[in-house]
């Protein structure tokens, strides 16, 4: 599995009330060189979430992550936890794979339709499960990368002055300098100066590049 090392070590969160299943899975993941963290209940996992991310969902999880979630658990069930994560918009960065016992398949299918990454029926084929976990981690990593780029763009945008931002908007709209000058009631010469500054600050060389940068997902 190849992930951008700059994103940090991937983590698999295991939420299952069965200690044995959790332990065995952790052991299996370890044999595939994956880090895992186990939680005996949905509540325990939510507490962990609260402790590590504060209020903002944007900067969590810091590393590619995946949640392996048992559907049936005493207390808060896997489905309820899933709904809460979906409400917070965490599903992109934290894909959820459901573990279902027999008879829960229709529920799991419904969950997938609402945004879960996948479901695996117990008893599961172990390495196939790990493969799905790795795919989920990759999806998570992709999301995190996008977010990082978007954040970079935001930072660059923040350095622009008010007038430069106006010019930027009109440039992206595809207007020539003359029209921009008319719209902003300034001279064409001044527009050219602002435009050069914007390109410089945004680290691009052309208007097309600028547009691509701003239209990237997450921006």
């Amino acid at each position, binding site marked *: 599995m190849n992930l951008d090392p700059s994103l940090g070590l991937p983590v698999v969160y295991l939420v299952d009330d069965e200690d044995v*299943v959790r*332990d065995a899975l952790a*052991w299996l993941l370890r*044999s595939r060189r994956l880090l895992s963290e186990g939680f005996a209940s949905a509540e325990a996992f939510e507490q962990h979430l609260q402790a590590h991310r504060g209020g903002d969902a944007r900067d969590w999880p810091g590393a590619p992550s995946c949640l392996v979630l048992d559907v049936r658990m005493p207390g808060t069930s896997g489905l309820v936890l899933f709904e809460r994560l979906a409400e917070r918009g965490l599903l992109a960065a934290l894909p959820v794979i459901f573990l279902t016992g027999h008879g829960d398949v229709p529920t799991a299918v419904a969950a997938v339709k609402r945004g879960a990454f996948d479901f695996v029926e117990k*008893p*599961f084929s172990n*390495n196939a499960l790990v493969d799905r976990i790795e795919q989920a981690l990759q999806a998570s990593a992709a999301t995190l990368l996008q977010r990082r780029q978007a954040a970079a763009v935001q930072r660059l945008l923040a350095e622009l002055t008010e007038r430069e931002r106006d010019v930027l908007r009109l440039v992206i709209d595809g207007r020539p300098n003359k029209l921009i000058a008319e719209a902003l009631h300034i001279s064409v010469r001044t527009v050219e100066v602002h435009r050069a500054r914007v390109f410089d600050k945004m680290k691009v060389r052309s208007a097309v590049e600028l547009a691509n940068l701003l239209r990237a997902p997450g921006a």
Partner: protein
Amino acid sequence: MTLDAPRPNRRWRVHRRALLWSALLLLLLVAQSLLVALTLNYESSRAQELSETTAVEVAAELRRELGALQQQLQSLAFQAPDGGGWRAAAAAQLRAERILVRLERRDAEGRLALAVDSPFQAELFSLIPRADSDLETELACAAAGRAAAPVYSRSYFVPLPGGLGLELMDLCLPATAAGRTEGFVVASIALGALLEASLTPAQRRSHEFSFVEGDGTRLARAGLPRGAGVFQAERLVDMPGFALQLRADSSAGAPRLIPNLATALVLGLSLALFALVLLLARDVRRRARAEAALAEALAFRKAMEDSLVTGLRARTLDGRISYVNPAFCAMVGFSADELRSAEVPPYWPPERLEEYQRRQATRRLDDGAALTAAREGFETEFMRRSGERFPVMIYETPLVDAQRRQTGWMSAVLDLGAQRRMEELSRQQQERLQATARLATVGEMASLMSHELNQPLAAIASYASGSLNLLEAPDAETPGLLRQALERIAEQAERAGRVIKSVHDFVRRREQLHEAIGADTLIESVLPLVRLQARKSGTRIELDLPPTPPRVLCDRTMVEQVLLNLTRNGIQAMDGATPAAARVLTLRVEQPHERWVAFTVGDAGPGIPPEVAQRLFTPFYTTRRDGMGLGLSLCRTVIEQHGGALDFGPARGGGTEFRFTLPAARAAAAAPVAQTREAA
């Protein structure tokens, strides 16, 4: 029934009825008035006749009276008018005859010689002299002298003192001696007194009589009442020289309706007749209304009888069918006409004909006991047209006519076959429900067990896969990790073993429920259910038990279930495949060994083909569409849990036998159980 007759027809009927009634009333009216008129007419003609007769009688009496008077006066005429002698004789005459008021003796020239007045009468000629009223007398005497016979004068009026007066008439008798008229005797007769004298008391009461002149002047009258002037009769009384007109006037007026007896009678009768006609009309109307109500009630009852599911049948006392409702016809499959015309009910199965006839005969003989039995209902068997026999329940009540005489029997017939089918259906549903419930329990158990076993097995699989992963690229840590994994695998395997053991323990706990129970008790407890199934397919059940049934040690509920399963299989194997008469299910109990009791369930079915026999005990194998395939494998498991064995083979008389053994309860173990049973 004219309930649904067309309207014009009905109106016409109403009109015709009104016409008839008015014609009858009119005729009656005419007849009655004619009758009354005739009666009145008859009444008046009778009254008129009475008046005529009375007049004739009175006239005759008058003539007789006058004749007699003439006779008496004749003597006076012969007596010489010598003064004293004649006078005395005249006085005597006057005293005797009240109608005479004066006697005179006149000479040949008519001159008055002597005169004697009636002592009952005031002086006659005190107001006017005799000479003034002498003219009529003289004329009469002249006539009498010429005819030498008595002659009456015209009447004349003599006023009397006090404003009264008398109408008089003179009779002039010539006194002849030797052919020469010597003188005359003149007698003045009071007309009123004359009339009075010639009346009988009855005539006097009923009529007013009077003498009238031609011009209607009334000269004298007599009689108590005044004439009504309706029934009058006139009669001429002829006298020499004078004629008197006698008039009899009945006091009865024109006959009136009410006080008249005959009319009243006729009228009363007519009224009574009218009243009768009215009553009759009302009665007819009431009858018509009752008829309509009856028709309606009949239609209502008919609809009710037709809608009944219960068969209704009425029989006369000699057993002939007089009435059946459609439900009964549908039940037996014969039409109502066929049933009514049949000598012997066609729905009696021929083989039971004699029995039924006997039963009917006995019921006819004694009433009381049979009646109550019939009311409570009795079960019997009828035959449909197709020949199919079916059980029925009959409730009978005597049919009693208006004279309170029993004319037959009314029976309500219930088709028990249909009822049994319903019962059977509901029982089967119940059974299916129970099976489903059992299945649900099994499913739940399976779910629970699979979950319990899933966890350790999943863990084991994970550890094993992980270990394999490690072995693909072994490094220094690998042996340690593998050891760890193997330890955990062992742990989880043990856990799975514990789960299995707990199931085993559960089965063991049921074993402790084993009790010593008589083989006969076991069979008896399932027999009702078996019979229910057997009756449906017409299967007979044969029991073969040793005289002292052995006791077995078993879980009663489970073994009962096994017996039920085997018997049901047997019955179903024969259903359809075996002729009804040969369908026999045998239940046999033997004790081949002192430790074992053998139960055998044998059927007379077609036997089991070898390819089926091979797989018979495989769970979920079934030859029936709706079967679960758990029956026989479950039976075998139950029996084996008891330490017995279940096998099968061909039966002696064909078909299949299922045989299982159960451990016999030892006498020592059985005895205390038996005692506690008896104590309980």
